[in-house]
């Protein structure tokens, strides 16, 4: 496209150009749009209608980079949810959604760019397990009752946690006390993998680990 159009077009007034025109052409040539390649075409197509999402990324990230990252993960898991908290506290989230959320936030907890990312990842990872207990009467973790209860207790008393997640954690603790729930035939997720005990610990200010290890 651009190659074809980079060829000079004939002026309706003939070939000769005046000196001012030549000067203008010379300046304009220096600033003319670069050759349009496939990617430029991709960027241009229908972009006007699709601009709001990228602009919102910038606004969201400016407000809170960590929460924005968590919300983007949640939206990627299920576009029907706008935020991580909405996904994790809604009974509309499927078990599959929660399982994906648990893996994604566990990875964020391990590989997050900042301490705030890793801390938020740890809280949301735990919240995904809590949501499975509360909304589906299903354990999507093989942590022991004691380890889960300790971690959920910390979440309830953590002042940095959204009150909706604290409430979720509190309800999950109650569920664990009466586990297994009589109305549910499911006791544990048989596809879940064993996790290391430290998976429920707060990552604190430690640096991100080199790999994700297991993401169960």
């Amino acid at each position: 496209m651009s190659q074809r159009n980079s060829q000079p077009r004939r002026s309706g007034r003939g070939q000769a150009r005046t000196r001012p025109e030549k000067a203008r052409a010379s300046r304009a040539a220096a600033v003319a749009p670069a050759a349009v390649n496939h990617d430029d075409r991709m960027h241009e197509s229908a972009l006007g209608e699709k601009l709001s999402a990228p602009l919102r990324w910038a606004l969201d990230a400016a407000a809170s980079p960590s929460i924005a990252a968590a919300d983007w993960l949640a939206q990627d898991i299920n576009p029907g949810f706008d935020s991580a908290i909405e996904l994790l506290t809604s009974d509309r989230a499927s078990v599959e959604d929660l399982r994906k959320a648990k893996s994604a936030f566990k990875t964020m907890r391990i590989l997050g760019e900042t301490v705030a990312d890793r801390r938020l990842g740890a809280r949301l990872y735990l919240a995904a397990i809590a949501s499975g207990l509360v909304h589906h009467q299903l354990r999507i973790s093989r942590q022991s009752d004691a380890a889960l209860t300790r971690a959920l207790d910390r979440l309830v008393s953590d002042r940095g946690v959204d009150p909706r997640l604290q409430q979720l954690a509190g309800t999950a603790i109650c569920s664990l006390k009466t586990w297994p729930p009589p109305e549910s035939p499911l006791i544990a997720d048989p596809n879940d993998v064993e996790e290391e005990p430290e998976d429920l610990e707060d990552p604190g200010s430690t640096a991100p680990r080199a790999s994700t290890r297991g993401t169960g």
Partner: protein
Amino acid sequence: MIREVGLGDPTSAAKAMQRLTRRYWPAVYAYVRRSGHDVHEAADLTQGFICDVMLSRQLVQNADPGHGRFRSLLLAALKNYLRQQHRRGAARRRGGKLPREIDLDRAAETVADYRSDDSPDAAFAAQYGATLVRQVLDLVRADCLKDGQQAHWAVFERRVARPLLLGEAPESYATLIEHLGLPSAAQAANMLVTVKRRFARTLINEVARTVSDPVEVEAELNDLLKHVERRR
């Protein structure tokens, strides 16, 4: 970038000016086109504005750095230029000329992206934002490749950029894991978030270059968003 043009050494000032012009011609063209000029007149007037106002009159260098956003300055200068051209009838005298400096096919693509009920101001703002996003995508892609994050970019491109811009279906994580050799969907999802965050940072930085005070960045982003959402 605006400060670079105004204060930098001649070489970096020239480069900055070139970037500015490449960035803003689609918005200028969009405004002129939606003002009722045909494709050739619009291309001619756009070229005239860039050469006569942005370059010759040093629009950027003469801008008052304490006086708001470059987008507003550019639009005001463009409106003034078009009024002058209308009075002089210069556009008509140049009618029929097909300047080769502006790619008319690309310009037509730009026009195709407008809604018929867009006002010139709305078309200007939307095209301004579109060009900004396109250039930020280019910068982010280059940065990812430079930093060895080819896989990060590939995940972002196939899951977000192409679906967003071309309407393609996002590639599944299973496919991405297989094609890119990634360890898990969770890691791929976090790689995508890394690039989105990089995009956001770069967009904020680019907008910061066009406002006189960094605190105006959010207002400028909100203003662009308002124009874009009004078009839906």
